[in-house]
């Protein structure tokens, strides 16, 4: 198990290293001056530019430029934005918080609803409720997220007036941005209107979370249903029944843990899909996260920001995938046999 985890971590490091190679080369492929693309410092500011030339090894060869690039990356000196002229690294921290808040809540919602619904559909196989659940999940699965988001805004914000159109919180509450996750920020703040602010934030939050959760939710329902049906066919479940164990015990101790295995395996993949959807959703709901920031920087050709955004999103997906792999191997020991090819 430890060996397996170590191997995954080594793989993670290698992948991250390849990612830095790509990011480094991008600076030379973008139009313009590589040094400006990398550091965000233009030749207009001659003194700073000459300092950057030395600091980033531009008086030497490509190899030392790459080594200096890595060094800056690790030290958290990711250059400054070409547009705002603020350090990219400081800008990205609260944005990441906002993105994670949205993503984690959506994932939690999808898991919270998807697993029971899938199990229920499987137990009621071919019954009316099964058909309804599966029909709805298939239709929801075929709706692209950008359209769904617009529909939700149209319905819940404009027609029913249940939620604001966009944004994170009403600016009147004047909550200081610390982590970027608005709920955490409210809890950490000493505003006299904490409770009201919290409700206001939830008001803003629920529509994008639901929009984001629908895609993984439909996937989870379908995987869970098939997986439960598959496990119920297995010999060990039949044997457990024959031994006279009661149904609840079999469901919670044998069926569900085994049926959850494909879910755990899928989580990493679902997270990658979620991240793509999060970029679109953040743009539509004007959510101050990494996704909308990245899209904006592409329009503005803000190369240091593009670089940082790519790095953060890609590392996040890689990290989650490795984490899920390790959890999977830890909880489902029989797959270690496949891994080690015993």
């Amino acid at each position, binding site marked *: 198990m430890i060996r397996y985890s170590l191997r995954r971590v080594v793989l993670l490091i290698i992948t991250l290293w390849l990612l830095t190679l790509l990011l480094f080369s991008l600076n030379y492929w973008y139009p313009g001056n590589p040094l400006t693309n990398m550091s965000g410092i233009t030749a207009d500011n001659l003194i700073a530019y000459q300092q950057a030339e030395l600091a980033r090894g531009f008086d030497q060869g490509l190899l030392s430029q790459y080594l200096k690039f890595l060094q800056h990356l690790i030290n958290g000196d990711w250059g400054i934005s070409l547009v705002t002229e603020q350090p990219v690294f400081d800008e990205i921290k609260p944005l990441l918080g906002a993105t994670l808040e949205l993503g984690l809540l959506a994932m939690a919602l999808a898991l919270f609803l998807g697993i029971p619904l899938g199990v229920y559909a499987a137990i009621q196989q071919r019954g009316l409720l099964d058909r309804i659940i599966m029909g709805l999940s298939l239709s929801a699965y075929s709706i692209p997220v950008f359209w769904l988001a617009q529909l939700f805004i149209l319905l819940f914000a404009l027609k029913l007036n249940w939620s604001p159109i966009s944004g994170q919180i009403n600016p009147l509450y004047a909550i200081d941005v610390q982590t970027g996750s608005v709920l955490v920020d409210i809890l950490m703040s000493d505003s006299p209107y904490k409770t009201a602010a919290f409700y206001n934030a939830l008001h803003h939050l629920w529509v994008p979370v639901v929009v984001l959760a629908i895609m993984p939710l439909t996937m989870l329902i379908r995987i869970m249903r098939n997986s439960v049906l598959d496990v119920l066919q297995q010999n060990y479940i039949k044997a457990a029944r*024959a031994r006279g164990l009661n149904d609840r015990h079999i469901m919670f101790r*044998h069926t569900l843990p085994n049926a959850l295995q494909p879910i755990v395996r899928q989580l990493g993949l679902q997270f990658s899909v979620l991240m793509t959807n999060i970029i679109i959703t953040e743009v539509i709901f004007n959510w101050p996260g990494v996704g909308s920031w990245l899209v904006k920087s592409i329009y503005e050709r803000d190369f240091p920001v593009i670089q940082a955004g790519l790095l953060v999103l890609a590392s996040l997906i890689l990290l989650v995938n490795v984490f899920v792999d390790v959890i999977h191997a830890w909880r489902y020991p029989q797959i270690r046999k496949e891994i080690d090819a015993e």
Partner: protein
Amino acid sequence: MSTILDIRNLTIELETSAGTVKVLDKVSLQLAEGEIHTLVGESGSGKSLLAKAIMGFINPRWKITADRLWWRHYDLLSLNPAQRRLVTGRDMAMIFQNPGSYLDPNTKIGDQIRETIPKADLKGIYLRRKASRTVRAERLLHRVGIKDHQKVMESYPYQLSEGVAQKVSIAMAIAHNPKLLIADEPTTAMEPNTRNQIYRLLAKLSAGQGMSILMVTQDLTSIVPESQRMSLVYCGQLMESGATEQILSTPMHPYTQAMLQMSFFDQGIAPKTRLPTLTGAIPTLQHMPIGCRLGPRCPNARRDCIHQPRLTKFKQREFACHFPIREVKSHD
């Protein structure tokens, strides 16, 4: 010895695209307390189906009828599924071929054995109950001949060999002291050494605590010496049934004789001569012959064989044949 399992004319019908097929056709079987009964049948003979029907692993699409399906004083066919599971769960247990697939792949063996120990056998409150569960699980493993209980209890099923997995299955099966153990080809695809261990273990358990065993096997060579009675089924029909020794020494039914010749043929047989076999092949479900299903393949078959023969009883054995190999001397 008293009869604990009494089956008379059990018929299982299956709906197929080619109409209704009787996969079991009027099979009768009696099992006495503490007896080892071997049920022999080739693949497709319905022997596993019979075992499943006794255990109540019933597919709702099967139509089961019987003049009698009694387990001790319960009429199993009249019980509702919940009551039936209660009775079978308490009194019967079954072990299978591929024992590994009957163990939960993601739960440690120890936990799986512990959960089969009936609550009624445990005393004390939570922690003491938990400890006594572990002690009892260890004892069960010792009883099935696993000495290294620590290691086995900490393993997952994929880490065990099939032989050890079968022993674990047996341990779980005997956890609640069942009256009947059904062993459905428990040693198929096992090494001879392991196979003998398992058979010895089952015989010992039967003798030690008066547990009846219904041993389902494919061929006559794997009949254990301890087996008191045996039955042969072919294509869902009972061919012959009686004391094991008698059947093996003086078969009445042509099918039994053919099986004996196939299984224990003369070692001094001349080279390049045909081995003794029945002509033809086992018919498919859709093409079952009428009457005695052995008919087209039977060396003794005559015109009468298009009617299903009734069971002839004679000296505590039964056979279903119009033209048995030996004359039945005394009718009673």
